[in-house]
Every structure is written in structure tokens, then in C-alpha cells.
């Protein structure tokens, strides 16, 4: 490829990226507008919370215990070197509450509920269900997109909280029950180290932001999917990839900007 053609291809890709970002921004505004205006679709919202939240409970809880157990093991082995094995509760708790709980929950939920959400919307597009709604003068963004997105935003902080609690329990199992640490130290150092506003509220804020990101990316990918079976699969895959990267990148910025 000659340099001019390469430059042209790069330019075309850059323009396509900017155009896609612009479409994403407009889509987000329309989705939020649809979500905050009546009619309120409580029944659909509850069903979507079940799909996004309740059906993610098992993987979130199991993953939480596993991550907490690993943290307990690694933390114990490291802290013993510095003679600070008693601080295990603080290490496990702060790691999970401030960072790992929201981030790993977001990655898990993007992989399970986000991809399912994008695939469902894309498949509704392929089978003309979205056009069917339009023909009934029902806005698909309002009827399908808004309840799904809102359910994701509401579920994420709750799932992150559960992940964190199960993680702390996993750390306790390994640090105290398996490795014989002191249970009182584990709980008291955790209690002393965690600050509600800085750590707990900050972690919930992160989870909320990740929920918004995953919800917007999943619904956007679903609604803009190519109407074919390959398009459905691409919508699901790209949701997982983009939402995961967006979670990790935004995590850095939230941490840096809010300084917590």
C-alpha cells in the first residue's frame, strides 16, 4: 500500500470513528430523554432488573468469594513478610470496596447481561420486532431500550455491593479459617480502615458510572446492529469488548479525578 492510500485509509477510519462517537452521543441523549419521560414502564423495568440483576447473582457471588479468597491468600503471604498479617481485613476490604468490587462486577455484568441485552435488541431488529413497534407508534427506545438501560444502571451498584460482601467473606474464609488468622483482627482492621463517604460511597459511585457505560454501550450496539445473524453476534461481542475497555479506562479517570 502506498503512503497516500494508507493515509487515506487512516483518515477514513478516523472519520468513521468520530461519526460513530457522534451517533453514540445522540443515541445516549435520546435514550435518556425516553427514560425520563412518561409513560413509566414499571412492569418492564422489573422484568429487566430480573434479567440483568437477579440472573447475574450467582456468577457475581461465586466470583466475589473466589476473588476474596485469592486476595486473602496473597495478602496474607505478603503481609507476613512485613509482620503485618493482622492487617489482612483492611487490605481485603479496601481493595474490594474501592476497586475490585465495582470493576470486576462491571466486567462480569458486561459479559453476561450486557452481551445478552445487545443480542436481544439486535435480534429484535433482525426479526422486524422494532419496526413492528414503530408501526404501532411505539418508540422502541422508550419501550425496549430505556427499561433495559435503567435496569442495568440500578442493578450494577447492588451487584457490586454483593460482590464486595462475598469477597470479604472469601478473604475471611482463607485468612482466618484456612490460614488461622485472628478473626477479631480481620473484622476490626476492616472496620477501622474503611471510611463510609470516601470508600463505600466512592465504590458505589464507580459502580453507578460503570452501569451507565455498560447500559449505553449494550443498547447502542443492539439498536445499531446490522440486521443479520452475523450482526447479532457482532453486537454481543463488541458490547463485551467496548464495555470492558470503557470500564477499565474510566476507572482510572474516576479514581484520578475524584482523588479517592
Amino acid at each position: 500500500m502506498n503512503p497516500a492510500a494508507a493515509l487515506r485509509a487512516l483518515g477514513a477510519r478516523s472519520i468513521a470513528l468520530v461519526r460513530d462517537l457522534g451517533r453514540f452521543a445522540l443515541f445516549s441523549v435520546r435514550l435518556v430523554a425516553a427514560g425520563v419521560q412518561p409513560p413509566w414502564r414499571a412492569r418492564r423495568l422489573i422484568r429487566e432488573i430480573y434479567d440483568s440483576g437477579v440472573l447475574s447473582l450467582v456468577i457475581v457471588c461465586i466470583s466475589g468469594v473466589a476473588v476474596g479468597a485469592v486476595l486473602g491468600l496473597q495478602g496474607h503471604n505478603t503481609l507476613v513478610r512485613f509482620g503485618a498479617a493482622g492487617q489482612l481485613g483492611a487490605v481485603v476490604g479496601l481493595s474490594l470496596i474501592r476497586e475490585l468490587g465495582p470493576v470486576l462486577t462491571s466486567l462480569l455484568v458486561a459479559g453476561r447481561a450486557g452481551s445478552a441485552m445487545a443480542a436481544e435488541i439486535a435480534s429484535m431488529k433482525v426479526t422486524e420486532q422494532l419496526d413492528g413497534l414503530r408501526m404501532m407508534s411505539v418508540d422502541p427506545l422508550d419501550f425496549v431500550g430505556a427499561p433495559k438501560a435503567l435496569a442495568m444502571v440500578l442493578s450494577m451498584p447492588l451487584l457490586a455491593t454483593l460482590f464486595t460482601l462475598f469477597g470479604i467473606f472469601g478473604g475471611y474464609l482463607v485468612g482466618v479459617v484456612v490460614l488461622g488468622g485472628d478473626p477479631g483482627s480481620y473484622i476490626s482492621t476492616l472496620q477501622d480502615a474503611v471510611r463510609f463517604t470516601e470508600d463505600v460511597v466512592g465504590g458505589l459511585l464507580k459502580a453507578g458510572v460503570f452501569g451507565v457505560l455498560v447500559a449505553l454501550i449494550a443498547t447502542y450496539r443492539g439498536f445499531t446492529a446490522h440486521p443479520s445473524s452475523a450482526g447479532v453476534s457482532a453486537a454481543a461481542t463488541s458490547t463485551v469488548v467496548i464495555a470492558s475497555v470503557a470500564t477499565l479506562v474510566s476507572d482510572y479517570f474516576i479514581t484520578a479525578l475524584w482523588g479517592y
Partner: protein
Amino acid sequence: MAKPIEIEAQGLCYTRGSRVIMNQLSCVFPRGRISVLAGPSGSGKTTLLRMIACLIRPDQGALRIDGEADLTELGLGAVRAFRRRVGMLFQGGALLDSMSVFDNVALPLREHSELGEAEIRDEVHRVFEAVGLDSVDALLPGQLSGGMVKRAGLARALIEKPDLLLCDEPFSGLDPPTVRRIEELLMQVNQSGGATMLITSHHTESTRRMADHLVLLLDDGAVSGDTKALLQNDARVAEFFAESTSPALAKGAP
């Protein structure tokens, strides 16, 4: 009673990539009549139907309703108001697969009317009876046969008593008795309600039986007019039907 709509296509052009789907297409779908839109595969039948439904916009040209408003120029609010007057039966039914058949058909009433649940139930069952559906309330669309999906889709299209009914290939993939049943149903709806009907179809026997107006899309434009007259007097129409149907029917046998 419906207030039937007349649709006039004026110089429609539509291109996708390098493929020209429509080039200066003009035709009329008369008020209150059953018009069948026929033509070879890829001639733009479904595209035209989707343009009339405002689901896609032509690159050029106008679609006039009752000789006045141009559908291609309407804003979102006006499009939604127009769609309230239109029922559409999609080729695959387009029923929401996460909702029961009853909820699918009740949806337009729940969204747009002030009716209570009891009245909605009565209205839905009235339409179910009209399309010949029974005991399907709690079933999901995935549990229905192809013919039942079409009838449920038709029930949803008819529930708000539309002035214009658009049907995309309503007979495709159906067995002959079901085809006859849907044919009779559409003719009955047209006779009792007077709604303008626009049906895309490859099914030449049905076209001959029910269409009182025919629009045949060909490479060099559209041929339209009274079905019987076109079959007898227009060589291109006769040739198209001769190629797509049995010899007896092509000669005008009932």
C-alpha cells in the same frame, strides 16, 4: 368505519450501494380498494411498502396521501400520527417474542387508548375471533405455527381499525387452506371496514382472486390498473403471470 386513504407514488428513486432498486417509480393505490403489488424478486415491492410505512425514505420522489401531504417530508410527530391510521402485517409477523400473543395484540390499545383491561380483553377476543384464533392468549409467538403467527400479526394490525392496511407477503410459506382463509379474511375486512389495502405478493392465484387493483413492478417502471383488464390487455402482465402460475390460471380460468 375506516376513512380509507389513497396513496400516490410520484417519481420514487431508491438506491442501495451500487444497486438501483427504484428508478422514477410512479403509481397510485386507490382509496378503499385491495391493491396487490406484484413483481419479480428484488423489484422493490417490500421497499415500496416500507416507504409507505415511513420505515425508510426514498432518495427522491414523493408519496402523497389523499393527494396532499407528502409522507417523505413528514416530521416524527406527523409520522406517528399517520401510523396510528395504518396497520401493518410483516412477513414474519414481527410479534414481540417476549410477550404473550394476547399482550402483543393488546399492546396498541394499551399504548394509545383509554380502554380498561376488561374492554381491551373483549376487543382482543373480538379480533381473535375475526382472524380465527382461539385459545392462544397465554401462548408465546414461538409456540405458534406459521399460519397462526400471520393471523396473530394480522389481528394486531387490525386491532385499531386502520384506514390503510399494509401486508408484506401474507401468503408466503402457508399451506393452501390457510392461504384461502387469510385471503377471505382480508377481503372481508376490506368489505366490512372499507380500509385501503396494499398487499405485496408472489402468490399469483391469490392475486387473481382478491386484487381489484394490480401494480406490477417491472425493470422499466410500474404497470397498474384493474386486475382483470390488465391480465387481458397487457402483454407484459400476462407474460409475468404466465411465467409465475399454472397455464390454466394464466389463461384466466377461475
